[in-house]
């Protein structure tokens, strides 16, 4: 089944609605909340991974939009400052989904955002503080 990641922006009044419940029950989608910053009375954001059938995706997204939530494809939220990075590779030691890989021969740190689960282990591990999350 296809899996996609979305960046959801909640208007302040919608930020308390249990949307994941409806995605599961009404649309048969499997939600995986990777990151969320949701507080009553404030604009909220959620990085949501959905797994399901194509037609259910479309109906589920339509439901979210009808609820006043802005849905956009997930942007890369982890940023690597290449000027600061010294290519030590310590981030790769704590990245369990193997989203970060240091290619020794090329001398390049690869970041595969589709594998990233936004656990922030790399942010804390980086001795150069070169990795940041945008929200």
């Amino acid at each position, binding site marked *: 089944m296809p899996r996609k990641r979305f960046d959801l922006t909640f208007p302040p009044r919608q930020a308390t609605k249990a949307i994941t419940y409806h995605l599961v029950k009404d649309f048969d989608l499997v939600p995986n909340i990777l990151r969320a910053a949701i507080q009553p009375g404030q604009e909220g954001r959620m990085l949501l991974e959905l797994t399901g059938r194509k037609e259910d995706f479309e109906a589920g997204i339509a439901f979210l939009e009808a609820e006043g939530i802005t849905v956009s494809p997930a942007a890369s939220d982890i940023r690597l400052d290449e000027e600061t990075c*010294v290519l*030590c590779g310590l981030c790769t*030691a704590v990245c369990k989904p193997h989203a970060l890989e*240091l290619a*020794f021969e090329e001398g390049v740190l690869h970041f595969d955002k589709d594998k990233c689960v936004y656990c922030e282990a790399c942010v*804390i*591990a980086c*001795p*150069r*503080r070169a990795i940041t999350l945008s929200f």
Partner: protein
Amino acid sequence: MSKSWEEINARIASGEAVVLTAEEFGALAADEGIKTAARKVDVVTTGTFGPMCSSGVVLNFGHSDPPIRMAKITLNDVEAYGGLAAVDTYLGVTQPSSVRGIEYGGAHVIEDLLRGRAVRLRASSPGTDCYPRTEIDTWVRLADLNQAYFFNPRNAYQNYAVAVNSTDRALHTYMGTLLPRLGNATYSSAGALSPLLNDPLYRTIGIGSRVFVAGAPGFVAWQGTQHNPDQPRDEHGVPVASAGTLAVIADLKQASAEYFAAATFTGYGTSAFVGVGVPIPVLDEDLAATLALGDADLQATVIDYGVPRRSRPSVGRVTYAQLRSGWIEIEGKKVQTGPISSLPKARAIAAELKRWVAEERFTLTPPIQRLPQPGEASIHTLEIRTEEAV
């Protein structure tokens, strides 16, 4: 086949020396054999770029008017040693900021100086007849200082442990975050490029050796602290645990932030990545044999950092080739690996040092005095005792 230091230096001086990095030399020896490689190549360059906590700089600020004998000194709120002459100090890389803690420490001050940034110097003193000033608050840049040089008491460790954690909670260590139940393994050596792994018995690297320190030409000043040549060695004489170390000295003004980088290890403290490289003359085939060793030949000992004691248990031995593959097997379990020492930077250092020797005619110095050999050193432990028990 053997070559003398004089012959090799004469070839460097005339621009004819054949210089390869340790990795290139290993490849040549694999293709053409050690004998041929030893005959063809004059110098092999090495490099390493790992966190080296026992590093720091000696600084002289020059005198203010009226002058001060600085007793309490801070640079960007990081304390520097006030127990030297009036305006001399030593700033260690691990000293944390009194304001920002371990997120900014002595290493960050040094990196700021290398980047040409102004640093706030504050000092106080009781005041004396000859040094009447009691307070100073000013800004200094590297170019303003009289002398500024690295004096790193322990760099370029000859091999290091591979760290794992058998406990049920994550550990924050100088080897990075160690995930519970053997969740990962971290290692910190340049392997085949590591200076002291290429000359395991310190035949060419000794006191007075000309070396690369953070982009500056420098010298081996002394044996490094905790230099321990008596660690177990493999059939090539290469230690399989952390053994020899170097104390190095080099001009900070000639160094570069390209080869020195401040580091913060969460839950542990501040440190610095220091780039160290040593050129090794290919004197004979014995030396060529160890210079040719690759990551598949070099081993490290896996240590369980979950045991909070001086002597932590070993849980196996692995090669650097296995570590570089991304996983190792420990106690039947597949464990993800990650390095702390930067291999791309180590390569850049070995390549830059190769350029120094081949193009800038950076000649080599035989040791003025040898480093302690196996059987010549002893490592003491610190016993907790009373004066009466001594």
